[in-house]
């Protein structure tokens, strides 16, 4: 039972990650790979606030998410001023740089990781309570992204992506919309990270590398970029699949490459065969 809870929690957390990344890349058209680092920044911020300063965990989670949103502006503001392409390059540096920073901060556990993080819930129903919390949060995030990308704000995002220059000539501030989308998406990734920290109670800088970026991108592509339900499908599939493989009892040395090949293969197959993803409409529809 404990195992099922932990898989459900992972699915919930990855749904938040995929839905928020979909907001950034699928709807906003902002190409960044740094999504896991905003997960990490909030996870560490929340864990340390609670661990070192005794901030209550729910408040620490909130501050952590806001911290990630704020840090995202540090990345998006200077790079988007130059061009959209620059964001991609800057995001790689941002992610790899911060991983190195975390590895060298002693009070954050440095390279060996941060242990003893406080748990959001305790007692015998801890896992159940946590599962419910994460799934409710995931549903709320999916709804929030849907609300943002449909209706009036969504119309503006759509127009901006159709023709940014014309959009600006109508008195619309494209830069503000991009930075807002990036900050909201990153803040939500932070929420996922903080929830993760207070359930698994252990963080290691190695968890937030490029492989993690690839995994989340795969979820968005496979599920359907620019769709509301795609990230859920992607998160479900790509969390369940690697778990299923573990039942094959392969040695770890074979296991890791098989998972990596699975992600890469899926992205390639989907980009060629069904670029709109499982949920998205087929081309021409």
């Amino acid at each position: 039972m404990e195992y099922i809870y932990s898989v459900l929690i992972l699915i919930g957390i990855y749904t938040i990650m995929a839905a928020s990344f979909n907001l950034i890349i699928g709807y906003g058209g902002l190409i960044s790979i740094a999504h896991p680092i905003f997960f990490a920044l909030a996870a560490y911020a929340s864990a340390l606030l609670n661990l070192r300063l005794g901030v209550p965990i729910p408040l620490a989670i909130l501050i952590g998410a806001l911290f990630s949103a704020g840090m995202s502006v540090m990345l998006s503001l200077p790079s988007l001023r130059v061009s959209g392409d620059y964001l991609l390059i800057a995001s790689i540096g941002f992610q790899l740089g911060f991983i190195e920073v975390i590895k060298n901060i002693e009070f954050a556990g440095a390279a060996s990781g941060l242990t003893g993080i406080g748990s959001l819930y305790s007692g015998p129903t801890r896992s159940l309570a946590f599962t419910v919390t994460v799934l409710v949060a995931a549903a709320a995030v999916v709804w929030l992204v849907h609300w943002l990308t449909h209706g009036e704000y969504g119309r503006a995002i759509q127009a901006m992506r159709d023709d940014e220059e014309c959009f600006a000539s109508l008195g619309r501030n494209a830069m503000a919309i991009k930075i807002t989308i990036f900050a909201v998406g990153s803040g939500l990734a932070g929420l996922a990270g903080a929830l993760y920290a207070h359930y698994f109670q252990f963080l290691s800088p190695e968890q937030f590398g490029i492989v993690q970026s690839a995994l989340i991108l795969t979820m968005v592509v496979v599920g359907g970029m620019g769709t509301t339900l795609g990230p859920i499908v992607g998160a479900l599939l790509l969390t369940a699949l690697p778990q299923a493989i573990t039942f094959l009892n392969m040695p770890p040395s074979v296991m890791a490459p098989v998972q990596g090949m699975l992600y890469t293969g899926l992205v390639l197959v989907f980009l060629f065969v069904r670029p709109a993803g499982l949920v998205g409409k087929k081309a021409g529809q």
Partner: protein
Amino acid sequence: MSAAAIRVVDVRKHFGGIVVAENINLEISAGEILGLIGPNGAGKTTLFNLISGIHAPDGGEIFFRDQALSRLSVYRRARLGIARTWQNIRLFPTLSVLDNLLMGPRHYPGEALFAALFQPGARRAAAHAAQARAEAVLARIGLEGARDKTPGELPFGQQKLVGLARTLMNDGEVLLLDEPMAGVEGQVYETIKQVVRDEAAAGRAVCVVEHNVSFIRDLCTRAVFMFNGRIEQSGTVEELLASDKLAELYFGGKK
């Protein structure tokens, strides 16, 4: 004549070695329709791009009323009330006609997320007002029936009308119209003519880039003739059309 809404002073712009604007001095006043004529490549659209902020001038300054524009970005100039159309229309292809128009108002709280969260009532009221205005504009150009269509479903002339209508939603003091009549005939031609006339009568400063000489003659009080990025001549439309220089450079000698 009242004070100039737009004043272009000594503006200069080069792309590499190509002069697209040289020593441009120009005023557009409230209530007038200024014609901008000249052959392709004369720098007419570039001048619009300089006024609306798409390009930054290499020298000189452009004023809206008494406010210098050079430090303002494209969207800020539009918010001051400088609206423009495009030669190739540039409607948002994935939005409906109505939604295209709703991107037009220069002060629209639709994208203000804080307002959405904390003043939902005020935002809803603004959205209703904008929609009512968009529907009134559509009725004015006779396109009520097209409100839920996408631009691609409309014939070319109607797309042009929608482009013009979206600009009208800005409701500002300046209208820059880039070849509103190109490829347009019949009823649409008459509608556009009427709209341009009405907008000037309502006190807006209108500037029209147009190759259609009869349109210029019918509507414009004053005209400017551009050639190779320079203003060759300006004056009343009659003066200009009678000029030998214009005949030689624009009509190739056969006036």
